């Protein structure tokens, strides 16, 4: 217990980094995933192929490999220092890796959301003369969004937990702090684990609470 109290500053820093990575990669993954989903449902064959390959490649690769590759890849292609808001370049690479990985899952969720919209909706949109983009933007996506929130909730929760994998590539977030403290205070491993685990449980609970709220706000009678 004392270990947790004495090292609260370090633990707090760790969780701040966890939350920062969750926020940024959550946004990036949502944007990239939505673009990929639009590829996967587009009438253009090669775009569909690109979307499908992306999903199959990144969904089936362990996140650790993606993070290690991300840390090696970006500097090689010339991105050497892209620290954001005082966080180091390593953090940015990890965030990019997390986003690229999570985008594959977002893509699948958005795609199944689009497919869950009743065919008649799109047919009606087309019959009043809307173009592909209009019917997607004004009719289908707003409805798909509602169907997408429950699967997105579990994707964001998984992302919150997945930020811990960044510890392996040396990002000093909460899991990294846990490893450091466990190595240093070997007699206190149980308290350290329970403390850090509790932090993650709280993040997961708050996240799912917020998204449930959003789900209820957006709900419409159908």
């Amino acid at each position, binding site marked *: 217990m004392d270990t947790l109290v004495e090292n609260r500053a370090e633990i707090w820093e760790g969780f701040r980094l966890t939350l920062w990575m969750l926020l940024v990669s959550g946004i990036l993954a949502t944007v990239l995933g939505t673009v990929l989903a639009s590829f996967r*449902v*587009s*009438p*253009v*064959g*090669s*775009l*569909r192929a*690109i979307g499908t390959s992306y999903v199959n490649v990144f*969904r*089936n*690769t*362990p*996140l650790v*490999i993606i993070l*290690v*590759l991300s*840390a*090696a*890849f970006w500097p*090689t*292609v*010339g991105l050497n220092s892209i620290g954001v808001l005082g966080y180091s370049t390593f953090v940015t690479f990890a965030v990019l890796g997390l986003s690229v*990985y*999570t985008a*594959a*899952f977002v893509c*699948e*969720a958005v795609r*199944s959301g*689009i497919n869950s*919209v*009743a*065919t008649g909706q*799109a*047919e009606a949109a087309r019959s009043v003369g809307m173009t*592909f983009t209009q*019917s*997607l933007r004004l009719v289908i996506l707003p409805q798909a969004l509602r169907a997408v929130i429950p*699967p997105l909730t*579990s*994707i964001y*929760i*998984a992302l919150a*937990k*997945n930020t*811990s994998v960044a510890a*392996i590539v040396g990002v000093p977030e909460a*899991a990294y702090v*846990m*490893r450091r403290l466990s*190595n240093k205070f*070997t007699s206190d*491993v149980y308290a350290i*684990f329970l403390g*850090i*685990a509790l932090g*993650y*449980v709280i993040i*997961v609970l708050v996240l799912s609470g917020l998204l449930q709220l959003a789900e209820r706000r957006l709900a419409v009678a159908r």
Partner: protein
Amino acid sequence: MSAVLFDVPGPQAQRRARIGAAVAAVLATVLVGLVLWKLAAEGEFESELWEDLRQPNIARAIGQGLTSTLSAAASAIVLSVVFGAVLAVARLSDHRVFRIPAAVVIEFFRAVPLLLLIMFVFFGFSNLFSDYWSLVLALMLYNGSVLAEVFRAGVNAVPRGQSEAASAIGMRKSQVMSSVLLPQAVTIMLPAIISQCVVVLKDTALGVIIAYGDLVFQANLIAESVNHTIVPLALAALIFIVINYSLSRLATWLERRFAERGRGGAGGTGTADLQLDPVRGGAGD
């Protein structure tokens, strides 16, 4: 292509789609080509690197890593299915003494990152478990809890008549569960279980945190010894992709087969009405 979004395209639309396809294909090829060119210019594909990778001890290291990964994943899957079934039965129990602890265990282990569990078992019981068992047990705790929820959904999806009929011929509650409900739930949920295998296989890679000698660990060692990261790690990724892609195809195939059998109505297990998780592997954990 989504049936929701388009009518059957006419000749003009078809032509436009073909032009778009060509443009997109060219752009994508150029982009990938540029990246590969840049990587080659930085010496990531040097010929001595390939010489190094052809050495027999490197092939052996990759083989060893793959064996370690597969054996950890196999043990973890078997134990997760058993642990998950026990947890599911406990959570479905009529007795609060079983139901509440099971719910707490399931919710806790699902909310805690697997990496934390691995480190906890490893550091917390270091005199009890080796790196192999630390990884396997942590995988069991997490995936067992996920599978428990899968099984619970499966048991709830077995038509009510089944358990009523079983009770009516005088089976005890434990008999109804073990000889009527669980076998059917496991069959219905087989695709979801296979999808979970993909998750387990990917998650064994987290063993690197405790230096378990799995595929990723070996790939990292090779990367250090040849001083290049991208090719060895990409190779490891490729192996994972091949195995996991085949597994998920198997899951999709089984799902379709069950759906067809359910529609046939002869078996009457009602699998057609069952909403299996449409997004394979769920959420990326």
